């Protein structure tokens, strides 16, 4: 009698990468929808976010999904228009912070010595303050407004990336292929750009994705306390402020709140999955030390 060993059944489908599964997929779809809405809204928006369309303070109905606010504007439409402020502002903040943090972190890590000491003390000082507090102080001193809020957020946000990148650069620059690049006569600029940065970037990019949601929240927070976007702008934080003055018309604040919730949650889902994919460790330790 012969026994046959059966080949294990061949896997039909490749397992999807973690960022295309479960919560991350939900998050990704949510984000894609938000971005599509933000991009195409002017083409199909039934009304202008600043124009009154009906009576004041109507409760939600089929014609006005989230009712109307104190000036008779459609709250649902305004919440959608809010994405056209929050998403680009957060994107600019994140991209600028990553660029600034990269330059500072790479310089500190690569050159070491007093350059490192000076730059990292600047990082420490910035990170010693809670981000919201420092952002408030900077915005207040620059004068309220969404542009100044944006500048303030970049100023409080870059140190995290500088610190992350510096740690990576220090680890990578001691690897042998970097030494052999020195021995081959490569310039420092070339070594940093082609040898060190590509090997150091992952934690920064993963962290930047996770931070996106935080920045959306921070933008709304600054606007809520009147330092960012001001009424009548349909910015989410500003809408919540309006909602707070019409406390019994819950839908005004709720619409903006739900919008913030959806975006922040989606970014966190995607960020978590990215972190798992790239196996970035110890981000929590580094982040918690300042914020």
């Amino acid at each position, binding site marked *: 009698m012969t026994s046959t060993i059966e080949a294990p059944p061949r896997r039909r489908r490749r397992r999807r990468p973690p960022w295309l599964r479960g919560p991350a997929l939900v998050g990704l779809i949510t984000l894609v929808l938000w971005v599509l809405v933000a991009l195409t809204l002017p083409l199909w928006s039934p009304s202008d976010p600043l124009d009154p369309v009906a009576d004041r303070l109507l409760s939600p109905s089929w014609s006005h999904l989230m009712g109307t606010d104190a000036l008779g504007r459609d709250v649902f439409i305004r919440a959608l228009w809010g994405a056209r402020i929050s998403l680009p502002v957060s994107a600019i903040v994140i991209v600028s912070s990553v660029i600034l943090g990269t330059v500072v972190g790479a310089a500190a890590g690569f050159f070491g010595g007093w350059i490192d000491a000076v730059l990292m003390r600047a990082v420490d000082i910035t990170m010693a303050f809670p981000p919201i507090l420092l952002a408030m102080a900077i915005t207040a001193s620059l004068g309220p407004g969404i542009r100044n809020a944006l500048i303030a957020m970049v100023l409080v946000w870059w140190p995290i990336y500088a610190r992350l990148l510096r740690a990576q650069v220090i680890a990578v620059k001691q*690897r*042998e*292929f970097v*030494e*052999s*690049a*020195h*021995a*081959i*006569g*490569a*310039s420092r600029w*070339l070594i940093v750009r*082609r*040898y060190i940065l*590509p*090997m150091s970037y992952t934690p920064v990019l993963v962290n930047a994705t996770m931070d996106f949601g935080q920045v959306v929240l921070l933008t709304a927070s600054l606007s809520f306390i009147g330092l960012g976007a001001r009424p009548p702008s349909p910015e989410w934080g500003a809408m919540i402020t309006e909602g707070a003055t019409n406390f019994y018309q819950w839908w005004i604040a709720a619409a903006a709140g739900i919008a913030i919730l959806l975006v922040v949650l989606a970014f966190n889902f995607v960020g978590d999955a990215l972190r798992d994919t790239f196996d970035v460790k110890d981000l929590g330790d580094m982040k918690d030390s300042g914020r």
Partner: protein
Amino acid sequence: MTVNGTGTGQVPILQVRDLRVTFNTPDGPAPAVRGVSLDVLPGETLAVVGESGSGKSVTMLAILGLVQGARVTGSAVFDGTELVGLDTGRLRSIRGAKVSMIFQDPMTSLNPVLTIGRQLSLVMRAHQPHLSKQAAAQRAIELVDRVAISQAARRCESYPHELSGGMRQRIMIAMAIANNPAVLIADEPTTALDVTVQAQIMELLDELRRESGLALVLITHDLGVVAGAADRVAVMYAGRIAETGSVLPLFEAPAHPYTRGLLDCLPRLDIRHDVQVSIPGVAVSPLSLPPGCPFAPRCSYAIESCDLAEPVLTQHGDTMAACDVLTGAGTRR
């Protein structure tokens, strides 16, 4: 002037005189290289032999200004240019272009995120800014072919992790010769490789030397490699040259007790070894050097004067050795 028994009137391409490298450590200054002088002639193979920590690698790294956190004094003249104390920019134009270096471990010496072709192009374009990308890519393929890797064009598209250790070392060699250097320093180029591949790599290096006339400085602890490949040998111990000379006399009639000890350690096929011979003791630490000959504590021939003053290199037979025992005068300890 010829020191170290080059024995010819040729002008050295690389002339090292009294090179000293001292590392600052928490335990005080550690002199890793203590006055090394050697000549490298065009087209020859010089083997620098020694145990771990004898300063052989540091000597070569110091010549290229690649040691960090150390004080380097003395002189290293390459083709009329003094390299010790030269500014980084000028050093950089010499590294990789005129004096190249390959390292022990090819597995970690290549950039993991760039293809082989891109890395070779980068090296060439770093020294020849006017070289077009296309020309560099073309030359990269020629180089890969030159180091005897088949399907060179396809290999240029590969990433380092797709290649075997031997292939990667060939790529390192291709990178080192990309700019037609006059001197190629190979720091234990075969140590991390399979025995079967070692011979191929040595053959390749020797072939390149003969074809392009570059001088090869072979840093190694493997005397077997030295015997097969080198023209001249410098044996280093504790940051100094213990003995130097042409390879044949040095192997046949070693003068310095340390060289003799090293050669005795080589297992021979024609003699039955019941016990593997070794030199007693361990290499001295640069932090605790004896006042006299650094080898004296391990030397079975040591005489009283060995503990008093450090010997200098003098001619003994066909080689030069730094050993007072050979000069004779003295009493046994």
